[in-house]
């Protein structure tokens, strides 16, 4: 059996863990150990090659990126089977909007949902820190819509030719837009290249311009500031009867040896995301804690949150050239700031260039195959004009029974039940859903009309479930209705912390990763202050 002793144990190695470890390494002298169940995936030097094969064939550019028997069921959009050093942010799109101030106070402002135990202003310095650690390129939006304490660390990615045409249209439709903030180097920084707009940010950036957690891990490990141990699955946390202090983590190597591992530490930080952090707490049930650790409230695994989107394609009388920088977009926070039309609806708005419906055809209108120059001529005619892709994430309030449970029918090689997830809207969101989605379609219709265009194609919001999921260990001031306090510390265990997404009360209505990290950095600040 392998035994490890450390001061701070971080379970999980995703983006929240990486940037928390970076902060802790600067603010404490304590030994930091990070354990990751998966392996190291494709190293930077191999990414240009794996990108080529992704483009050519659709192959997974991330090698050795999952464990066959360590997976969840009943998942939603925003989940992936990936389990490896760096987590899902190895293949994220790098989009980094902040939540809006209202996301933290929906109950106080609108009488709906649950307020967070801190405000946007409280989180602002940690947002800033997250942006600086990743290197976020962003454009300051209108301050009333896009408040922030300090400027973005990097200049924005350019509003390219296509987006400038679309921005003019959006402005004419009465919508303020700006360059979407992104963790992509608009200028060379931190030894990483300037963005080369390769158009494969998601799933793989071949140049290193997009931030991914491996850059942080490589630097921390090289400087011997942390010990990173891959292929080590923590399966149980053990609490000391009486005090409730966590005294050790136990588990196994996930390599062929399957060797047992015991880790003793003074401080335990769960940074395994919205699935694996609550899962570990539920797995850690024993006679003293029959419902799992940190679960006095019965809310571990509960209040899983996310948001849905309504999207469309709008054909417009303008000439666009899709592919100039196709993953970059315009963003608006105009609709995040308040309910409108008398009922609760808050959403973001993103606008991209699009080539939807403008590709080549096999057959012409007469049904006969197209060959040679006739095919090319037909394609050229279809390629002319412009299409905007529009999408709005709207706020979905979570129900208590939006939950993760242990599924005894699905077990890993060690016999641990795997997680099963069920997402459920709170009654107020369920009642508003049809009206909300209708309003968003109306908005897109109005946008199309303003540009003398046509709205085409609308996804069903049932297609992909809820996105950018959070929750499962929600934070709050009252131990009766929350799992951790406002700093991420478990109410029931003084040396146990839950970091990032799982601690969140809600999922806002925009991409979530920056907020997961900011919340995690706030927890890291508290961990350092708490000592141990």
């Amino acid at each position, binding site marked *: 059996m392998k035994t490890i002793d450390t001061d701070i144990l971080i379970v999980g190695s995703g983006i929240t863990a990486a940037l928390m470890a970076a902060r802790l390494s600067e603010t404490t002298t304590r030994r930091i150990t990070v354990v990751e169940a998966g392996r190291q995936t494709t190293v930077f030097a191999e990414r240009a090659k794996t990108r080529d094969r992704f483009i050519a064939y659709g*192959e*997974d550019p991330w090698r050795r990126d999952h464990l066959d028997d360590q997976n969840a069921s009943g998942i939603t959009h925003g989940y992936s*089977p990936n389990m490896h050093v760096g987590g899902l942010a190895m293949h994220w799109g790098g989009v980094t909007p902040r939540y809006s101030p209202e996301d933290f106070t929906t109950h106080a402002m609108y009488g709906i949902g649950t307020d967070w135990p801190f405000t946007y202003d409280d989180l602002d310095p940690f947002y800033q820190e997250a942006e600086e650690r990743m290197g976020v390129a962003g454009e300051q939006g209108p301050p009333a819509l896009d408040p922030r304490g300090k400027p973005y660390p990097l200049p924005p990615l350019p509003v390219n030719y296509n987006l*400038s045409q679309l921005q003019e249209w959006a402005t004419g439709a009465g919508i303020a837009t700006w360059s979407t903030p992104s963790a992509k180097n608009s200028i060379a920084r931190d030894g990483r290249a300037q963005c080369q707009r390769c158009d494969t940010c998601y799933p793989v950036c071949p140049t290193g311009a997009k931030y991914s957690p491996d850059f942080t891990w490589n630097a921390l490990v090289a400087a011997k500031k942390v010990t990173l141990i891959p292929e080590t699955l923590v399966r149980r946390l053990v609490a000391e009867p009486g005090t409730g202090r966590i005294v050790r983590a136990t588990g196994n190597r996930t390599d062929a040896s399957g060797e047992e591992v015991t880790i003793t530490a003074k401080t335990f930080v769960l940074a395994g995301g919205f699935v694996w952090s609550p899962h570990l707490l539920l797995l850690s049930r024993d006679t003293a804690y029959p419902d799992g650790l940190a679960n006095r409230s019965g809310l571990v695994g509960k209040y899983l949150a996310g948001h849905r989107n309504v999207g469309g394609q709008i054909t417009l009388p303008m000439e666009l*050239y*899709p592919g*100039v920088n196709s993953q970059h977009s315009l963003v608006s926070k105009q609709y995040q700031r308040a309910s409108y039309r008398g009922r609760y609806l808050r959403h973001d708005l993103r606008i991209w260039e699009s080539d939807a419906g403008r590709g080549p055809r096999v057959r012409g209108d007469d049904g006969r*195959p197209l*060959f*040679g120059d006739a095919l090319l001529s037909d394609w050229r005619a279809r390629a002319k004009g412009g299409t905007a892709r529009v999408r709005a994430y709207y706020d979905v309030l979570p129900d208590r029974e939006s939950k993760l449970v242990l599924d005894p029918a699905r077990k890993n090689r060690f016999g641990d039940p795997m997680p099963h997830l069920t997402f459920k809207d709170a009654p107020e969101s369920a009642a508003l859903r049809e009206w909300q989605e209708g309003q968003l379609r109306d908005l897109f219709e109005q946008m199309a009309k303003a540009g003398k265009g046509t709205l085409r194609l609308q996804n069903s919001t049932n297609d992909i479930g809820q996105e950018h999921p959070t929750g499962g260990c929600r934070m709050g001031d009252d131990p009766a209705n929350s799992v951790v306090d406002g700093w991420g510390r478990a109410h029931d265990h003084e040396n146990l912390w839950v970091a990032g997404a799982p601690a969140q009360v809600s999922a806002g209505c925009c991409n979530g990763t920056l907020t997961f990290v900011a919340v995690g950095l706030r927890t890291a600040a508290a961990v350092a202050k708490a000592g141990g």
Partner: protein
Amino acid sequence: MIDDRNRPVPEPAGLPPSRRGFLKVAGAVAASAAAASVGCAPPAENDARQSAFGASIQRTVGFDRPLLNMLGDAVLPEALGSAGRLAAVTSFVAWVDGYDPVAEEMHGYGYADVRYLPADPAPGWRSQLDALDTLARKMGQKPFVELDVAARRDVVSAALASTRETVMPEPLGASHIAIALLAHWTASPAAKDLAMGAHVGVLTCRPLAGTTTRPLPIVGVAT
């Protein structure tokens, strides 16, 4: 005699020719067939592809190139010129040869199961290529390669009568080799630029500078 004479790389010595002279070699050899790409990028270098169980995958690679060249000549745009059409066929062959059947797909957001790419489409495409020649002989009493462009297109049209695609599919999903060849070419950055009549460089890493100006037109291409 090895029929696949336009292969872009030297063929391994000592391999026995099969019925139509195709090469049957290890997948790792196939992947080394690096070619100048005007289509989807072929493997950048030898990728020692292994199955999930660690064994090399044996694949038959290559096509009857004279036949495939004449197919490409018939279906690809005249605007490419004969050299351009031949290059597109060469790139297609390298792409097919470099395919790793049933490799893991990219695990995107939204599903938990690990998904795999399709089985090797090449055997079916080879059979369809053979069938074009058979059909040509039935329809015109001549081998496919001896037909003029119009007659070859008639043969291909007849062969496509039972296919259903209306919009161009992903190359791997093409139901017929003629569509696969077209789909591979239309997926290329150069083809997209030609369709837009401008130097956009889709999926090509290029500097951020200049993104705010309208892409330069391709001289001589009317859009």
